[in-house]
């Protein structure tokens, strides 16, 4: 809709926007995406804080509030701040990371199924971590995190190379990824059965994706790396959107496809590797979050920020569910909750794709 007078003609982008303009800065802010992102982050934080009271030693909401603000009994403060708060932070941060990783890969492969958990990158990270734990026997945070990153990157490059044949096709990439992750999965199973039964139960529980063991000792370096990953993702986000247009169009827009794709690949693998190092492979959040966020924000492509918010909300919700389950029944790792719910979503997605 162009107005009759006034130099800037108004363009209908298909969604409500607000333009912010100063002398040296100008940005168009999509209102709906922004609102939904903020709401989702608030929801994630709310759920995570709400889950602080649930556990073997239940606390009421006022007790949690008092402990968080530095009041209340010393024991309550220990429980809430030292034991449960790192888990709550982990749930939100890891969920957001998974969402970002999923959005990056779904955008790179231009396929809603091309998320790192389907293509088997977290299986690679997990194999490297299990090898480090059981064979090398070193359990420090840095060795595990670097093993996880290395394993994830190796798997990513292997999958890309194997799927490469005059370009990487979405579906070929996915089937190659399925093959690689099936292979790694059986290697993992083998390693686990060779361990002591105690180790095996631990690694098995952790291997299903569990955040309950997260402590501040492990969270602090994870948060630092997460901040770096977030910075890298922010810097690369414009290139990602240009790459969605296809390489030729991206070049005309000023992107350099080769380096940009490499950077995005490393950043995307880093997100899952970080989560896998701290909590084990948490499946299907990366797959589901960008797509749900896209539906909610009604944007044509996946957005990094909204995917992050949706990932955080999803993982926080799954965490709450697993906590409630562990109170009324038995402890259930959060990764199982996400796999079961996310897998059902994947099936629905496939049916929809097939119908089209």
């Amino acid at each position, binding site marked *: 809709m162009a107005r009759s007078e006034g130099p800037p003609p108004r363009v209908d982008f298909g969604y409500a926007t607000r333009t912010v303009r100063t002398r040296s800065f100008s940005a168009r802010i999509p209102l709906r995406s922004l609102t939904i992102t903020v709401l989702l982050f608030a929801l994630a934080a709310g759920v995570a804080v709400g889950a602080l009271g649930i556990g073997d030693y239940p606390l009421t909401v006022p007790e949690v509030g008092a402990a968080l603000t530095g009041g209340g009994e010393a024991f309550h403060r220990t429980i809430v701040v030292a034991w449960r708060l790192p888990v709550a932070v982990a749930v939100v941060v890891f969920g957001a990371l998974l969402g970002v990783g999923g959005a990056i890969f779904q955008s790179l492969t231009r396929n809603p199924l091309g998320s790192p958990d389907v293509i088997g990158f977290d299986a690679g990270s997990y194999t490297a971590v299990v090898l480090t734990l059981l064979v090398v026997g070193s359990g420090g945070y840095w060795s595990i995190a670097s093993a996880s990153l290395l394993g994830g990157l190796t798997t990513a490059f292997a999958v890309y190379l194997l*799927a490469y044949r005059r370009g990487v096709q979405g579906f070929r990439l996915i089937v190659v990824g399925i*093959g690689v992750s099936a292979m790694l999965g059986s290697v993992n199973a083998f390693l686990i*059965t060779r361990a002591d039964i105690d180790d095996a139960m631990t690694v098995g529980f952790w291997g299903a994706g569990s955040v309950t063991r997260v402590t501040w000792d492990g969270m602090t370096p994870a948060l630092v790396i997460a901040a770096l990953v977030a910075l890298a993702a922010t810097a690369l986000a414009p290139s990602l959107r240009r790459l969605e247009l296809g390489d030729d169009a991206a070049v005309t827009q000023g992107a350099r496809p080769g380096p940009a794709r490499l950077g995005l690949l490393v950043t995307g693998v880093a997100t899952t590797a970080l989560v896998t190092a701290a909590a084990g492979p948490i499946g299907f959040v990366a797959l589901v979050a960008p797509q749900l966020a896209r539906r909610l924000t009604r944007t044509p492509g996946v957005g990094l920020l909204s995917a992050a918010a949706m990932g955080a909300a999803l993982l926080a919700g799954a965490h709450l569910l697993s906590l409630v389950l562990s109170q009324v029944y038995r402890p259930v790792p959060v990764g199982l909750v996400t796999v079961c719910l996310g*897998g059902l979503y994947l099936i629905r997605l*496939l049916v929809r794709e097939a*119908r089209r």
Partner: protein
Amino acid sequence: MTRVPPEAAGTAGAGRASPAPGPSSRPEPPPRGGRHRALGRTVGVLLLLVALPSAGTASLAWGTNPLTLDQVWWGLWRRDGAEADLIVWTLRVPRTVVGVLVGAAFGMAGALIQALTRNPLADPGILGVNAGAGFAVTLGVGLLGLTGMGGYVWCAFAGAAVATVLVYLIGSAGRGPARPVTLVLAGVALGAVLTGFSTFLTLIDEHTFRSVRTWGLGSIARVSLDDTLAVLPFLATGMLLALLLSRPLNSLALGDDLASSLGVRVVRTRVLGIVAVTLLAGGATALTGGLAFVGLMVPHVVRWFVGPDQRWIIACSAPAAAVLVLAADVLGRLVARPSEVEVGIVTAVVGAPVLIALVRARRASGL
């Protein structure tokens, strides 16, 4: 996209094979003639005749405690309670018999499911059929407290049947035949969900964890002969059904319309095919917990030798898969001595590259 258009896949292999009459003008029976094809079949059968006894002998002789052929021979015939006799009869004979049976079942199930779905990437493991059987067995152990093969088998059948039908429904939700990749993804998704639920059940209950932990890996070492006998009738029925179905499946490769115009009852063939897959994959999974990729690899290799005729493919897949399983089992015993690697892990490590090679290939070998 690497998918093979079904019609092209149906006739691609035949076109290459027969020199004389146009393959499309003679849909059924597929070309018998051609020295090339006859030679391939002869070589294939001869290879199987050599390979199966060799693999069986290797499976009897090699392991943590290697025996010479002499010892195996005397152990087999002179049951005097000596060490070799004990090893052969209590350890190696059962696992060899189980390996042959289970391999044959998975191989035939794979050939059958590839023909039914006209999908070169189909395999009972990839399509989630084994996961369905495994989930149902875990459910039975966890909730109903089942023990022993008699209970496992029925659970496995129910799970395998439901999973087969579900995957087929999901994959064919759209118009027209299910696309290979959609079917594979549907199977993987279903498998992930079912395995997730199984893991959930095993983690919440230590008893279930203990009984299912080693079973789920795909080992043929811990299966007793009694259990095998309990499952044998079902496997035999499945194999018989598969062989009977191989003729109509040849016509089905041309597409449903053409097949029904040739007098094939399409729906009945499909239903019976699913029953056969259920019996074979469900029964074999109940025994071993599922061996990945056996059903994927074997029919493709067999097709190199015998061509696109389903009767040959299905019949030869059984002994060929038995050879593969025995070889994988022996390999698993040798690489990790004095311990051993479960056969399911070996087949997964060997089979995944095959899947990758298939999806890389421009045109998978014709169905």
